[in-house]
């Protein structure tokens, strides 16, 4: 579903990771680990197609649903309007919106303006958006930030059912999601040799 080989990514022109390769099939999950600044976010943004890779091959980029640090919510819209908007952008329907609302226990809040939600509720809404995209590969950057234990449980359930339906997951996280045995990719192993940016190198 998502195949990445010999990928090199850069942040602000400076190479941070190189030679990254992995393959996610239906039902696969992969957890990225590494200290702050090791390049997890950069890798995820590159996989999601938000920035071009320095080199390497990626397949299945158009299958990706991405969720980063910002939830992309409009505070003037209600919970269900936010989800309905993304459903129509991704060409899915009301059924997915309803499923997403129930998966993250947001039904009771569906008329509430997103701006009046708590931080944890906003995050749940941001994650519910993944369900309405209808895309199989979830690429998530620290999805459990500001979630309480119960909400992390909801999220884990959603992930399990997604994987069960043949989805895939690529996630950067520091907490145990309770998914059982999940392969871990330590990005520090792929740290690009300390180099300055290619643009800078041209001037030396």
């Amino acid at each position, binding site marked *: 579903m998502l195949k990445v080989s010999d990928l090199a990514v850069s942040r602000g022109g400076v190479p941070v990771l190189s030679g990254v390769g992995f393959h996610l099939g239906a039902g696969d999950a992969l957890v990225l680990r590494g200290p702050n600044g090791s390049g997890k976010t950069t890798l995820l943004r590159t996989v999601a197609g*938000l920035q071009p890779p320095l080199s390497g091959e990626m397949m299945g980029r158009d299958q990706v649903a991405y969720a980063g640090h910002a939830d*992309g919510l409009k505070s003037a819209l209600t919970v269900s309007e936010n989800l309905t*908007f993304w459903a129509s*952008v*991704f060409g899915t329907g009301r059924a997915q919106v309803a499923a997403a609302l129930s998966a993250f226990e947001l039904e009771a809040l569906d008329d509430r303006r997103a701006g009046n939600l708590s931080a944890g509720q906003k995050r749940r809404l941001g994650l519910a958006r993944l369900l309405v995209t209808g895309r199989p590969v979830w690429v998530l950057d620290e999805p459990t930030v500001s979630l309480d234990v119960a909400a992390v449980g909801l999220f884990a359930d959603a992930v399990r059912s997604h994987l069960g339906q043949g989805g895939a997951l690529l996630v950067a996280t520091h907490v145990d999601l309770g998914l059982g045995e999940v392969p871990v990719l330590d990005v520090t192993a792929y740290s690009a040799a300390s180099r300055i940016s290619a643009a800078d190198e041209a001037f030396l």
Partner: protein
Amino acid sequence: MKALLWRDLALAVRAGGGFGLGLSFFLIVTVMVPFSVGPETARLSVIAPGILWLGALLACLLSLDRIFALDFEDGSLDLLATAPLPLEGIVTVKALAHWLTSALPLVIAAPALGVFLNLPGPGFIWLFLSLLIGTPALSVIGSFGAALTVGLKRGGLLLSLLVLPLYVPTLIFGAEVARRGAEGLAVETPLLMLAGISAGALALLPFASAAVLRVNLR
């Protein structure tokens, strides 16, 4: 695409500001003009078409920085860029939403404000038409400027500096249509040029805006 348009319209209506602020600015600028040039109706009616065009243009400029900046800050722009929509289409729809929420109210209000400045009788219809045809160009050119400055902290002032020179041809032909119309002269040539600028900007600039957004998102 349609969903994006509806969302932007809904946001503009609910967050207020959208319609109200630009319109009030247009009203205030128009009202200030007689204070600065004097109340003689003959003089006012001569400068009315130009003043109204300039006022509408400046009011349009006020709301440009919100076209992309809000979506950029809350992360929606990232998500839209990964959605199955071409970025060129997204840019066009957002420019259209800006036109509907910010420019169209000005177009409708302009003839009413023309009364304050003693706009001559035949001028009303030509002022309205020239703004109707010319303001789409203002929105599209403005969205290009907004895309250029989306990542910058103090982009607002820079945005005006970049966009205003690009507005010159639109302003010249638009105000010329209104002026000639008010004086009862033939308006065909400037009207065609104005329509040409709007059509050309609408057809070509979204590609430039999308290219610029891609640079700013990476």
